[in-house]
């Protein structure tokens, strides 16, 4: 790799293209976080590639001044696979939406996860199809009235964290568009992970699903409705960190630390090899229990692109750099004079 370019700033990652999201859209904050994080990673500007599918969220590449590929709907992980395998030196980022990633693109996503392809996925989850003007997505709630469900959604939604854990993703995290410090730090963590990093970002679509996360992320109530996962720390939440989460049997329960001081709160271990506990706390129902944000899981595994290269290098080391003549002139040969 080229040596880190110490002089990069946020401005270096801005393009001359006008940003075309609706005023007030959560996407701006995410773009801002990306542009803040990229210059801090010690990676030269030209070694980034931002890949996307189609959707409002998938416009991301146009606004980040590096290499970008705005591909077709749902296929960003497949393009990223080709890009990363062809040139493992690149730092490959995917910008995608809940529709792009989980609806049409679900298969590529889970396969990239299981393979542990070394790419970072930022999934802008606004629980709606923004670009096509307001149909429900695979993360929309049952009963929701949308353009395509005048009488309410009947599909059960995905839990994206569950899906990622079920597919074997090695890094799984969640953050929120409006919590820029948290978001920035999660993106930094994702960048540092060697392997597939999946970051679900709660994102407000103020046009077609305004306030979808207000019940969780509004400034005043946030502390009571989100619980931050911090490695090695007990799960505490509330403004005064006076509530905690522990296990009762196999089920998580909330303890009021003021009335019931306890030392058996779940202590977060993002390196736990099994994803079961992460799975469990990701099932805590919205509104009834706090929603975890932060890093659910960060474990080390060989990466797909790494292993692919390694194998090729090993074969080359064993058999030598292939000679074309040897290859063509192999098998049973005969001469005609």
């Amino acid at each position: 790799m080229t040596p880190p370019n110490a002089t990069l700033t946020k401005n270096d990652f801005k393009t001359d293209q006008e940003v075309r999201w609706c005023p007030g859209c959560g996407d701006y904050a995410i773009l801002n976080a990306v542009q803040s994080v990229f210059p801090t990673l010690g990676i030269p500007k030209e070694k980034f590639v931002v890949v996307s599918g189609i959707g409002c969220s998938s416009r991301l590449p146009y606004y980040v001044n590096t290499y970008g590929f705005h591909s077709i709907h749902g296929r960003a992980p497949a393009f990223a696979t080709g890009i990363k395998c062809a040139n493992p030196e690149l730092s490959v980022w995917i910008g995608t939406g809940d529709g792009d990633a989980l609806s049409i693109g679900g298969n590529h996503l889970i396969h990239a996860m299981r393979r542990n392809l070394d790419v970072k996925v930022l999934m802008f989850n606004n629980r709606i199809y923004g670009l096509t003007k307001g149909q429900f997505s695979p993360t929309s709630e049952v009963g929701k009235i949308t353009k395509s469900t005048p009488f309410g959604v009947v599909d059960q939604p995905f839990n994206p964290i569950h899906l990622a854990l079920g597919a074997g993703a090695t890094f799984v995290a969640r953050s929120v568009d409006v919590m820029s410090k948290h978001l920035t730090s999660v993106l930094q963590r994702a960048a540092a992970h060697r392997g597939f990093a999946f970051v679900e970002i709660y994102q407000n679509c103020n046009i077609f699903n305004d306030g979808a996360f207000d019940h969780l992320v509004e400034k005043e109530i946030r502390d009571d409705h989100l619980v931050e996962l911090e490695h090695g720390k007990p799960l505490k939440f509330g403004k005064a960190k006076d509530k905690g989460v522990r296990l009762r049997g196999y089920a998580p329960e909330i303890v009021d630390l003021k009335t019931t001081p306890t030392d058996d709160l779940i202590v977060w271990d993002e390196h736990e090899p099994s994803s079961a506990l992460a799975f469990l706390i990701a099932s805590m129902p919205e509104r009834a229990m706090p929603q975890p944000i932060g890093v659910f899981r960060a474990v080390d595994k060989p990466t797909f692109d790494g292993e692919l290269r390694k194998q090729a290098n090993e074969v080359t080391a064993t058999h030598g750099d292939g000679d074309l003549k040897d290859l063509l002139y192999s098998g049973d040969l005969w001469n005609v004079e």
Partner: protein
Amino acid sequence: MDVGNHGSPVHHDRKTLDQVVIRFAGDSGDGMQITGNEFTKTSAIFGNDLATLPDFPAEIRAPAGTLPGVSGFQIRFAAKDIHTPGDEPDVLVAMNPAALKVNLPDIRAGRTIVVNTATFVDKELEKALYMKDGKAFNPLDDHSLDSYRVIRVDLNKLAIESTKPFGLTPKESLRCKNFVALGMMYWLYHRPIEHTEKWLREYFGPKKQQLADANIAALRAGYHYAETTDLFHEQFEIPPAPMRRGTYRNVMGNQAVGLALAAAAKLSKTPVFFAGYPITPASDILHQISRYKNYGLLTFQAEDEIAAVCAALGASFAGSIGVTASSGPGIALKTEAIGLAVMTELPLLVIDVQRGGPSTGLPTKTEQADLLQCVFGRNSEAPTPVVAASSPADCFARTLEAVRIAVKYMTPVYLLTDGYLANGSEPWCLPEIQDLPKIDVHFQSNPEGFKPYARDPKTLARVWAKPGTPGLEHRIGGIEKRDGTGNISYDPDNHDSMVRLRTRKIAGIAHDCTPPLVDGPSEGPLVVLGWGSTLGSITGAVESAQAKGLKVARCHLQQVWPLPATLGGILSKYERILIPEMNLGQLWRLVRSELAVDAYSFTKVQGRPFTTSELLRKIEEVLKMPAHGSAHPLESKAQSGLLQETTETVGG
């Protein structure tokens, strides 16, 4: 090349022939493909020209001994230049009743049939549906084969006895019976057996030496049995064919494609990234090149065809030559992404090994019915060139040519082959490495004045700037772009001009592509126009017609779309055009719409190639038809056993 070391107790005449067609047929488990391959290699090394046609059962493994389970391998070897695996076998080797039943309709009276008598027992006869009044009957006993020369051999017994010394299980012993049959054929056609012996030793390796020994023993047993018993009365010799000087190997189409992909990486000094998803009959390309990891060639087995083409295109963006391969149903899935390749103007090679369709169709059979899918099967105006291979060995040159076009014109390119080319084989006169075509790849590196959609004024190709290059950061995608900057543009006039520009870029390839193969009189009453794997049949038929004194020429496309610029001029010299295709007239449609010429379409969609004789008959027929006439594909079809199109109607 002498087999004299095996003694020769009975005296036989040795007649010289200039060509022979053998068909080995048996159950899928009988090893007919191996048997055929060995005969092929031996004949190739012996110096014959040859052509082969394997015929697998469909993807599913049918129960042993049944009709759908029959596997066949036909080889034609000759002392002269030949073009097809032959219309009708001179010898049929039938390992079981099912093989006899399935293949008999193709055998002309007077020809030789070798049967393995051990399998003509009630149980096997039943499975082959040799049944009358609920009971099995034996076709070897009812004089129904009287018009053939039937050679009865108990191959099972010969296999078991010859392999006794090696301590095999009875099942293992029986598995050697194909080599008994092969040995007999080697004797009959006076072939050396040592190549096969050598191969068997390599194949089984030192660990399984007794299996090698047993098979070799079976091979020799067959050879000697034919020699010592008076089984065939005579022996034949097929002298080497006069062939071009050079080093030869036998090659199958898929193999040639795989070799060419390794060559493309070397010749272009650019890594090749191959992404595929298994599908018959394209999978073997993936299998083969996944061994070439030390040739600058990476392979990725994707989760599906869409992922495969997208990964390949992603790799092209990143500076590799992206390649994907599939067959009809898989190609259908790739079309959206190929449209993106058109819009982003990145090189991409899409290999379509055509098979019988529509839908799942006849997966192991051949057809050339994806041409129009490749030319037109994308949303909106998404022009894409199509290159087609005409013989197994030609797959090598065509693949290189397709890569050349892809990187020179920054465009996706289709390479069409088919099941017949993929699995068929022929001797290939190996090219000198230094004679291989250049594939020039130029990556942009100078940031000064860089524009991602700046073009070469001649080819109209845009520049290729790969991620990782400082100063060339840029963004591409599927939305219409402003020429030059590549920025998104919704401007109506820009759109119109870009649609035409992309089309003109591809149209320009008509002037920079492999010209059609033209052969025979350069003007006259008839030219037979073809593309793809029909080359062999057409050449055979045209040569026969010429031998009969008919003035017939042949014009074969290697570049199918855009039609080569010279084609119109060539065709205009003939009074009649005949277009035989293994589809319902797809090239016929292109030629009519592009060149506005009339042509006689002749179609056969039976999952197998044209025979030389049916083409010859058609040539004679068309010569009697009006000049500048035309026949619609639905009106004119190859005859088959079943002359009537049957239709089951409701009720009645």
